[in-house]
């Protein structure tokens, strides 16, 4: 038996580490959602679906732009020394995932703007003829559009992976030190984005396609969660204890009820019935997927912060 007591009483650190509040899970969720939306709209551009006038690849970039900006606002709100935020962009630290992330975000914006330029609102075209000219020029090249699609998919994948790598690089928190977290967040981002597009798409074909794709993403996500937990359980004692936080400990109720059942299993069942024409498509399934995606980020961030090497009593 080992019992540790400490006289340390630092804010955000004791009695257990809780330096990141709601802002980081929200940032990670929105980052993942935008990543998924970029991959989906990139795929539609690449595959030629952009020729359909109601293709979601025309409004997804605008929504991505808004969600990403909200995510960055959440990140900014979390900073404790806000007046120095510009320091992120005076250096690139190759060993720091946060540095990679801030530069990836900077690259994502011009790509989203390029995507937005493909289909400008009529009022914008009339007010700013230069933008209309650029848009017309872009639309005249099929290859250029396909390339924008490829870059969207590539950067979307980078962004989605980064949201997981950011946490898994922090080996001091046993729950996060699993190399599969990037895949979990990428899959969750893709399934959240597919659910979101399913919810708002005007085109029936897209709705059907994304419901089917979402089922695939949800199954992979479930599998990745299983692998992550197995990996932790067969590792060291501290990693095992970290996994137990989700399986039977402090965060188990939220994890099982909201992440696994409400966020994955129930919508998966509803969507499987819908794509097999047993029931009508219902907005409930995508809403549950999105809710599960948000709660997943909260659970992983909070339980990860709680997991530790020392057992301090």
């Amino acid at each position, binding site marked *: *038996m080992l019992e540790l007591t*400490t*006289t340390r009483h630092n804010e955000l650190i*004791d009695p257990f580490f809780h330096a990141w509040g709601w802002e980081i899970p929200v940032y990670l969720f929105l980052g993942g959602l935008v990543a998924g939306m970029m991959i989906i709209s990139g795929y539609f551009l690449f595959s030629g679906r952009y020729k359909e006038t109601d293709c979601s690849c025309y409004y997804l970039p605008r929504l991505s732009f808004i969600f990403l900006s909200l995510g960055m606002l959440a990140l900014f709100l979390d900073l404790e020394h806000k007046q120095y935020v510009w320091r992120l962009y005076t250096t690139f630290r190759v*060993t720091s995932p946060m*540095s990679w992330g801030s530069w990836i975000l900077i690259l994502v914006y011009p790509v989203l703007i390029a995507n937005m330029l493909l289909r400008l609102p009529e009022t914008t075209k009339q007010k700013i003829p230069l933008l209309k000219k650029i848009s017309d020029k872009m639309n005249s090249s099929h290859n250029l559009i396909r390339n924008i699609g490829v870059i969207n998919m590539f950067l979307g994948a980078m962004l989605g992976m980064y949201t997981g790598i950011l946490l898994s690089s922090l080996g001091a928190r046993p729950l996060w030190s699993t190399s599969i977290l990037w895949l979990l967040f990428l899959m969750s981002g893709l399934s959240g984005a597919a659910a979101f597009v399913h919810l708002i798409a005007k085109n029936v074909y897209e709705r059907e396609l994304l419901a089917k794709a979402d089922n695939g993403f949800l199954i992979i996500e479930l599998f990745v969660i299983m692998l992550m937990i197995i990996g932790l359980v067969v590792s060291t004692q501290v990693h095992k204890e970290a996994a137990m936080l989700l399986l039977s400990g402090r965060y188990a109720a939220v994890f099982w009820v909201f992440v696994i059942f409400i966020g994955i299993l129930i919508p998966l069942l509803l969507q499987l019935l819908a794509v097999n024409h047993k029931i009508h498509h219902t907005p409930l399934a995508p809403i549950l997927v999105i809710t599960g995606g948000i709660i997943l980020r909260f659970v992983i961030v909070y339980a990860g912060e709680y997991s530790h090497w020392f057992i301090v009593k």
Partner: protein
Amino acid sequence: MARYAMVIDTTKCVGCQDCVIACETENNVPEGYCRDWITTATSGKFPTVQLEIRSERCNHCSEPPCVTSCPTGASHIHDVGGVVLVNHDECIGCKACLASCPYDARFIHPDGYADKCTFCIHRVEKGEDPACVSVCPTHCMHFGDLDDPESEVSKLLKERKYHTNLPEAGTGPNIYYLI
């Protein structure tokens, strides 16, 4: 090149917290926070239990994850002695370094930057001991250069048994506890 380290004799430490107060005074540590603290570890099975009292702080790790995770370079390894420091006006307060430290040795100063023990580098560069070492009434704390085989810390580690905290975390801690 020097490699500064601290060697603490747990058989002499009584947990009086002089080191904690000395650090707070020397470094203007804001009220309610601490850069060093006392940990009491009780191990074994009753009635054969063992008690170890330790003065703990940042381990000035040789492979510091707080430095590699910092996105701005504010957390860095000082040119002298491998001491891990934070440049306050480069720190954005993102808390990645706090999250990456397995010892939870850092905190956010009320002014917004990440803060922690500096090994009192401002004193060490003048040839003095860190404040905590200089006040210990039982003389259980020793500070010096491990690269110098003649230094007191090198000799103590040659002569005595010791352990470090969480060597399994792989950060290469430089606070040694004599047992």
